C-alpha cells in the first residue's frame, strides 16, 4: 500500500474517535452534570433568573445542538466564558499555554537528554552493578508520590534554603527564569524514573537482535555497537515516545504549577477544579484530547515513514 493511501486511511480512522470523544464529553458535561444554574446563582435565585441564565448559557437548546456545539468547539476553540472570572476561555487558555511552555519545554528537553543518556549507560553495563543500581534507583524514584517531591522540594530549597522563589511568576523573558528553575527540576525528577526504565528496555530489546551479534562478530567495540547500531534502531521507539509525550505535557504540570503559583494550563485547571468552573474543565478536556489525537496521528505517520514494514499490515 502506498504512503498517501495509508495516511488517508489513518485520517479516516480519526473520525469515529472524534465522534466518540465528543459524545462522551457531551454526556459527562451536558447530560449527567445536570443544571448548573443552581450552583451559579445560589439558593435564592428566582425561576425567571434561572431561565435567563439557562438561555444565556445555551442550555435551553436541544441536546443535538448542544452536542454540535462541543464538536464545533473542538475546531474553533470557542469555549465561551469562564464561570468564575467571566473571561473568554480561549484567550485565557492561550496565555496560560504560553506560560506552561516556558516551564515544560526546558524540563522536557532536560529529562529526555538525561534519561536517554542514563539508559545508554545502564544498557552498556547491563546486568552489572551500575545497571542494577540505576534500575533500583529508578524504581525507588517511581514509587515515591509526586506530591512528596513537590512539597519537600519547595519546603527545602525555596523555604528553608531560600535558593529559589517559593511561588509566583513574571511574564516575559528573562524575568520568568527564577520562577521556573525549581518547578522545572521537580518536573525532571518526577518523570526521570519512568523514562530511564522505558529507554533502557527499548535499548535492551534491540540488543538481542541478529544484526547486533553480527556487528560484535566482526569485531566492533561495544560502544560502537551501542551508538552506531543499537541506538540508531532504537531511535524509532525513542522518537515515538518523545512525540507521544508532547500532548501530555499540557497537563503534566497540573500539581507543580498550582503549588508554585504558576498561571499556566495546570494552574488554571486547578483553579477551575477548586471553583467548580465547568466550562474551563470542559475546554481543557477538549483541547488536550484534540492535541492527543493529532500527535497520535503524527506519531503513526512518522512511524510508517521510518519503518516501512508497518504499512504492509
Amino acid at each position, binding site marked *: 500500500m502506498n504512503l498517501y493511501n495509508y495516511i488517508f486511511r489513518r485520517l479516516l480512522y480519526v473520525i*469515529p*474517535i472524534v465522534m*466518540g*470523544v465528543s*459524545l*462522551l*464529553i457531551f454526556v*459527562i*458535561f451536558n447530560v*449527567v*452534570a*445536570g443544571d448548573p444554574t443552581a450552583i451559579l446563582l445560589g439558593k435564592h435565585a428566582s425561576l425567571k433568573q434561572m431561565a435567563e441564565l439557562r438561555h444565556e448559557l445555551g442550555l435551553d437548546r436541544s441536546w443535538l445542538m448542544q452536542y454540535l456545539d462541543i464538536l464545533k468547539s473542538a475546531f474553533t476553540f470557542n469555549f465561551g466564558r469562564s464561570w468564575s472570572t467571566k473571561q473568554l476561555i480561549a484567550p485565557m487558555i492561550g496565555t496560560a499555554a504560553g506560560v506552561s511552555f516556558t516551564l515544560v519545554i526546558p524540563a522536557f528537553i532536560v529529562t529526555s537528554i538525561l534519561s536517554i543518556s542514563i539508559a545508554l549507560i545502564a544498557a552498556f553495563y547491563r546486568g552489572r552493578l551500575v545497571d542494577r543500581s540505576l534500575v533500583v534507583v529508578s*524504581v*525507588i524514584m*517511581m*514509587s*515515591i*508520590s*509526586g*506530591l*512528596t517531591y513537590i*512539597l*519537600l522540594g519547595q*519546603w527545602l530549597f525555596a*523555604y528553608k534554603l531560600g535558593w529559589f522563589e517559593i511561588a509566583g511568576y513574571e511574564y516575559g523573558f528573562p524575568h520568568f527564569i527564577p520562577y521556573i528553575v525549581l518547578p522545572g527540576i521537580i518536573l525532571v525528577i518526577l518523570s526521570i524514573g519512568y523514562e530511564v526504565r522505558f529507554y533502557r528496555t527499548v535499548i*535492551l530489546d534491540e540488543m*538481542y537482535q541478529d544484526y547486533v551479534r553480527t556487528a560484535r562478530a566482526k569485531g566492533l567495540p561495544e560502544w560502537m555497537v551501542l551508538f552506531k547500531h543499537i541506538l540508531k534502531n532504537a531511535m524509532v521507539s525513542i522518537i515515538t515516545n518523545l512525540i507521544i509525550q508532547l*500532548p*501530555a505535557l*499540557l*497537563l503534566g504540570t*497540573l*500539581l507543580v504549577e498550582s503549588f508554585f503559583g504558576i498561571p499556566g494550563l495546570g494552574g488554571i*485547571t*486547578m483553579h477551575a*477544579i*477548586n471553583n*467548580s468552573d*465547568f466550562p474551563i*474543565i*470542559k475546554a*481543557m*478536556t477538549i483541547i*488536550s*484530547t484534540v492535541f*492527543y*489525537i493529532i500527535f*497520535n496521528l503524527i506519531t503513526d505517520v512518522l512511524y510508517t515513514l521510518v519503518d516501512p514494514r508497518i504499512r504492509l499490515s
Partner: protein
Amino acid sequence: MTRAFTKSIWIQAFSRMAKSKLTITALVVVIGYSLIALLAHWGILANDWQLEIGNSYEAPNIHHWFGTDIFGRSVFAKIVKSTEVAMNVGFVVSIIAITIGVVLGAIGGYFGGVVDELIVWIYSTLAAIPNIMLLISLTFILGKGILAIYIALGMTNWVEICRLIRGEVIRQKDREYVQAATAIGASSFSKLALHILPNVMHIVIIQFSAIFQSAIKSEVILSYLGLGIQNGPSWGVMINDAKVELMQGAWWQLIFSTMAMFLIVLAFNILSDALRDALDPKLRGK
C-alpha cells in the same frame, strides 16, 4: 496430560519468582498491608482514629510514635485507617477494571467483526482523553467520595488490559488446542472460558499488580485535590494537610504518609516486574 503440563508451567514460574529474596519481601509487604487493611476494616485496628489522644501537633514521642495532627489525633491510627482506604480502592478498582477488560477483550478478540470494532472504538475513545482530565471530569459529575473513585478509576484503567487480552485472544484462537476443542464440539463460551482464558491468565496477573498500584496512586492524588475521600482518612488528605504544616515545622504527617504509600507502591512495582519476568514468555531467558 494437559492439566499437569499447565500446572508445571505455573509452578515453574512461581518457583522462579520464589528464588528472589526481593520478590518474597515485596510479597510479604503486600500481604502485611492487606492484613492491616482487613484488621482496620473489621474495627480491630485504628477504630478510634478520630479520638483526641494528645495535644495538637505533638512531634513523634514514646506515647505517639508518629505524632499527632492538628486535632490531637494519632497520626499512626490515621495512617492505618488510610491504608484500609488505599488497599480497598486498589482492590475494588483492579477487580472492576479486570472484569471489564477481560470480558470485552475476550469477546472482541474471539468473535471479531462488528462487536470487535465497537469494543475497539469504545476503548480508543477512552484512551484518547488524557487520563487526568477524564478522572477530574468523572469525579466532578459523580459527586465526591469513594464510589466516584471506584467508577472513575475503574473506567480509566480497563483499557490497557482489554487491549492486551484482545490481542492475545486473537493470537490464541487459531491455535491447535482451540481447533481440537472445536472438533470435540466445545461451545464458543467453553472454548473461551476453559481453553483460551487460562492461556492468557498471565496478562491478568501482571495487570492486576499494575492496576492495583496505579489505583492507589490515583486515589492519593484525587483525595489530595479534594475530589476523592471526604471527611475520612487518606494519605492524599494527610499530604494536603501537610502543605501548611510543613511551614510550621510539623513534618510527621507528610513523612509517614509518604513512607506508607512508598512502601506499598514499591512492593507492587517489584512484584509487577517479577511477575512479568516469570510469566511473560517473550522475556524468558533474557
